């Protein structure tokens, strides 16, 4: 999750984007600095080859600058960038497996494992238990549901944007998100009662 605190007078993405289209190098650099980290960490969740991921992200930015005159001016910048990175990485897969027919972005598996906050210092043991249990459930979700959750809550994309990125319609994207949380909650509620019970009896 992003923990950086942004300065108050941030110029919004679209202003920078439009200045970039007009050829403003400074705006390009600002957007680069703003999203490079996020894009690399997203890329890393799709491919295990860290250097290639950085290359891909840089290539995405290179193309943006070189072909800036053909860019659309009204895009959601972050969603556009994330989706470009996704496509790039898919293309990389395609090249590497040239004899295989897997070419669509659907075949990319979301590899990221959610992790648990290490320093739950001021939390009691029960909380830690709950968190790691939840974490286990989350990691057992199907890759696409995980990716949807990641895009929604770590990259703050809207449901529409997620649908577009994963190449599904709005309803499916919303289902992906909802089903993920629903399964989780169902399992969780059940075992939660148990955990709580165990704890209250042992105290």
């Amino acid at each position, binding site marked *: 999750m992003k923990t950086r605190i942004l300065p108050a007078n941030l*110029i919004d993405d679209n202003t920078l984007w439009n200045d970039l289209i007009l050829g403003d190098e400074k705006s390009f650099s600002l957007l680069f600095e703003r999203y490079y980290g996020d894009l690399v960490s997203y890329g890393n969740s799709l491919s295990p080859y860290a250097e290639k991921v950085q290359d891909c992200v840089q290539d995405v930015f290179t193309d943006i600058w070189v072909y800036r005159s053909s860019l659309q001016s009204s895009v959601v910048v972050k969603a556009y960038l994330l989706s470009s990175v996704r496509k790039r990485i898919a293309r990389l897969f395609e090249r590497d497996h040239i004899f295989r027919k897997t070419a669509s972005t659907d075949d990319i598996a979301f590899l990221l494992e959610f992790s648990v*906050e290490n320093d739950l210092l001021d939390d009691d043991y029960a909380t830690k238990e709950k968190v790691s249990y939840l974490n286990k459930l989350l990691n057992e979700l199907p890759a696409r549901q995980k990716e949807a959750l990641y895009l929604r809550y770590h990259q703050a994309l809207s449901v529409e944007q997620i649908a577009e990125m994963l190449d599904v319609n709005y309803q499916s994207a919303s289902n992906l998100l909802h089903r993920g*949380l629903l399964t989780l909650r169902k399992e969780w509620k059940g075992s939660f009662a148990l955990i709580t019970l165990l704890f209250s009896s042992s105290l």
Partner: protein
Amino acid sequence: MQKRNKYTEIEDFLSDESFQQWVLSRVDENGWEEWTLESRQRAKLVEDARLMLLAMKIPENELTKSDIHRALQDTWLKIREKENQKNVKTLKLNFFRKRFLTGIAATLVIGLMSAWFYNNHFKTENKIVTYKELIDENSEGLVEQTNNSNKPQIITLSDGSSVLLQPNSKLSYPKIFTGNERKVYLSGEGFFEISKNPKKPFFVYANEIVTKVVGTSFRVKAYSDQPDVEILVRTGKVKVKSNELISKSDEEEIVLLPNQALRFLRNDMKFNKITNITQDPVLVQNVGNIEQLSFEFNDIPVSQIFETIEQAYLVDIDYPENKLKECHLTTSLSDQPLTEKLKIVCKSIGNNTSFEMNGNQIIITSEGCN
């Protein structure tokens, strides 16, 4: 801001950035802690959302600022390479036509140069931001106070902050501060003592510079006809940056601590931070009364304390001398605006003591100390 009152699902919380900040970085800018405790049902929902967030952490991004910077430079190299390839291709294609194009190219070069020249020239003119422009930018109704006398003048703002305005200076401020920010506009020089309120940061706009504080005292000197702007901090912490009107980018803020100063060269648009103010002849020469006087009092007669305040703020204090003859106080009044200082003194003398302020005239009513 209170859209969270309508939250009914865990999902609502998960996507709230300020909630994420509270849970993951423990930065509670919006009072989540308190808000959560307002209702039991809410507390349950918040707890679930919190656990979910904690369980959904992803490995920290290991890229440092310099990593990103290097990546950016690499990318520019790639861009140049790609652009060259593109150009080589088009050049080859146009090899025969090139000669014909030379003439056009020359015209273009001249055109570009003049455009560049005009642009640069135009931009330097645009760099100077004046008080008037700043005032026009603001849409809240402002009160303007001008000091045409030859003595500093005290202004008390609606939040209790005080400003000691130097001769030939102007200050514009809203009659009552509304919203989440306190903004004032200065032309000339003033010494600011800001009442503490972390929820409503205080901004001083002066020429090209914006100074942001939460609660502190400092001096701003920004005459529109002088080549630089100076900020000198006495207590607390202050952040300074250039006004958005001249720089679009989110440039770094400069943080100033007590006894540090900053000089902004208006022509070069450069910040010079001065960490040792005693070595700077201009700053030393300019120290006003208020900055020289100490407000740390240890068993001092009240009359002496009032005298110090009179000297610092150039006000007249009228108080019942006989009744307060025997009163001594031990108190620290540094880092407090004028009204705060008076409040503290009155309260320390006793419950039956109060003050009234009318411009430069302050009247203390008291029945003596306990």
